[in-house]
């Protein structure tokens, strides 16, 4: 929502001479919808009586979420032996799921922060839902390291609080960096999300009919009045938070990748990890945004505000980041061959042709091959196909983390200490349940908070220009 200096007055003389062709800009809001239409459309989602599909999905999501609860309860009451972890694979699904969920979160911040700095106006239609997705995904992610510590009642040892022996955390450990990175990420994303929502909460408050609705949204809107003196500070704060979230989001997955890259395990100890992880995170996150937004667009008939242009852009980002991920896979192989290190070479040959070859080829086909379909306009316009490709990307990115984590640990230096890891039913339940947990939170968000940023949508509509006549 940042302001640019108005350049319309100082038109360079060269433009009159060369007379450049006027290229029409893609319309962000179709059918010339009015401000009131936007308000009505978005507020109606929270104002209408609870739809049946919502109730059904909510109960289903609660049921699925109970799997995580049961899995965690069984784990805590019995011990981490109930997970499939044993020497040599001490990191299994828990870390895979953690990286998977944190990665999904990254697209939300990319949309809300990086695309804001780059003045990509199309971001406005999807940024609120994507930010909500970020926050809920980070909540799902946080569960895994929390319970992976084994004795979860000692999890506070991770925080800068002395334990009973007066010992503090050790700040040379990338796992400790992770604690700071992920908790900062969660906090800043939540602040950014909430602050961006205040004007829209004010709009819902102003339309509220019942007293409890008025009270609820008044409390959340903090008495926002939409005065330009408030907007001026708001926009500055929004821009600054976008500027702060940009290095933050890049640092979070960088530090997540340090969990691997700082160790000496073949296949992990590489400098390509930070950019490779960040590209993968954005890739998986955009796939998740589309997985969520395409059904919502159909259910709430948001075709005018989330149009083909938005979907095209997201598909193209998936294509670009998917290709970067594919390039990173190739680079890893090249560097392993070039390093002359027998263990490093073996780690990669083992990934592709060893005991986990199936996981590797699922990863490659889902992450490198399927997104290439987005080169074709016909594919991008077929929304069911887009949705299916996005599911493939989600699956592929989960397998990427599985391949990285497990293949390197299962077959490292000494063949005498090799092993084969497989998850137990407790692992599977716990992970399956997080989709329910995520859905519960996301459904509550759809029902009670503004799904699309109304104020920002109004800014990008053509009638918002004060110089238009």
């Amino acid at each position, binding site marked *: 929502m940042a302001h640019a200096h108005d350049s319309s007055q100082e038109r360079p003389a060269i433009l009159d001479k060369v007379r450049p062709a006027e290229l029409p800009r893609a319309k962000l809001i179709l059918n010339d919808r009015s401000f009131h239409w936007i308000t009505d459309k978005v507020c109606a989602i929270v104002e209408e009586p609870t739809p049946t599909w919502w109730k059904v999905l909510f109960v289903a999501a609660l049921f699925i979420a109970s799997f995580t609860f049961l899995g965690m309860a069984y784990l805590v009451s019995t011990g981490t032996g109930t997970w499939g972890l044993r020497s040599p694979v001490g990191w299994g699904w828990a870390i895979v799921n953690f990286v998977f969920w944190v990665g999904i979160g990254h697209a939300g911040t990319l949309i809300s922060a990086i695309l804001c700095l780059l003045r990509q106006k199309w971001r406005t239609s999807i940024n609120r839902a994507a930010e909500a997705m970020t926050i809920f995904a980070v909540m799902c992610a946080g569960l895994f390291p929390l319970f992976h510590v084994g004795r979860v009642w000692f999890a506070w040892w991770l925080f800068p609080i002395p334990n009973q022996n007066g010992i503090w955390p050790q700040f040379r450990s990338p796992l400790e960096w992770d604690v700071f990175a992920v908790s900062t990420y969660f906090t800043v994303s939540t602040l950014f999300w909430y602050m961006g929502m205040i004007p829209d909460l004010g709009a819902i408050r102003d339309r509220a009919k019942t007293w409890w609705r008025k009270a609820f949204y008044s409390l959340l809107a903090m008495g926002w009045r939409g005065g330009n003196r408030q907007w001026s500070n708001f926009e500055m704060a929004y821009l600054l938070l976008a500027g702060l*979230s940009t290095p933050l989001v890049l640092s979070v997955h960088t530090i997540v990748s340090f969990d691997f890259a700082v160790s000496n395990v073949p296949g992990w100890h590489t400098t390509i990890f930070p950019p490779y992880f960040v590209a993968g995170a954005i890739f998986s996150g955009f796939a998740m945004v589309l997985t969520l937004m395409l059904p919502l667009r159909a259910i709430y008939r948001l075709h005018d505000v989330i149009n083909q242009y938005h979907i095209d852009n997201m598909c193209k980002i998936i294509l670009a980041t998917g290709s970067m991920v594919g390039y990173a896979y190739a680079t890893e192989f090249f560097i392993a061959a070039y390093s002359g290190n027998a263990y490093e070479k073996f780690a990669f040959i083992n990934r592709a042709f060893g005991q986990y070859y199936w996981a590797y080829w699922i990863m490659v086909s889902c992450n490198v091959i399927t997104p290439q379909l987005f080169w074709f306009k016909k594919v991008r316009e077929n929304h069911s196909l887009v949705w299916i490709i996005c599911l493939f990307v989600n699956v592929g990115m989960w397998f990427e983390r599985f391949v990285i984590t497990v293949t390197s640990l299962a077959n490292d230096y000494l063949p005498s200490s090799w092993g084969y890891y497989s998850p137990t039913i407790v692992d599977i339940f716990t992970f399956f349940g997080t989709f329910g947990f995520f859905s519960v939170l996301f459904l509550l968000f759809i029902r009670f908070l503004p799904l699309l940023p109304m104020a920002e949508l109004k800014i990008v509509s053509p009638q918002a220009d004060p110089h238009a006549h």
Partner: protein
Amino acid sequence: MNERNERIHGVACTFRRPSDVFHAAERVRDAGWKCWDVHTPFPIHGMDQAMGLPRSPIPRLTLLGGVTGFLTGCLLTWYMNSYDYPLIVGGKPYWSVIFPFPILYECTILFAAFGTFFGQFIFNRLPHHHHPLFDLPQFSRVSDDTFMIVLEARDTNFHLDESRNFLLSLGGQEITVIRD
């Protein structure tokens, strides 16, 4: 200010289009008003200049937060790993700015974000749940598609009838007196 205005908060006037309110705001600014505001459903491009507002002071708090965060990170890691319970790891120095850099980086961003977020609330004087404007029926449409200029009674230019006429001359539609 005369006694008549004691219980009056100001005068409000609505506009239908962003360009109308934009040009009206320029004229209010040129008439030398200080205590007034333009209420809009979304930030109008260039309105800060049209109102003659200075740059928002929030970046100062962001900087303050960032510096505090960096120093907090330094203090935290130095005190914990080097002073209170020195840890020998790999024969390296107890503390340097390098090894805990991710911690310092995250603390800088966290505190800068706090400065920005709370700065927005401080400079916007929020939360503020009771404001005379909320009693105005027209005000509920300001978050939808109506634009409103409010001239406040505490401004030295304020005189009920003159200010009303002034707003009329700006092309405003509904003119209402806001009572405290």
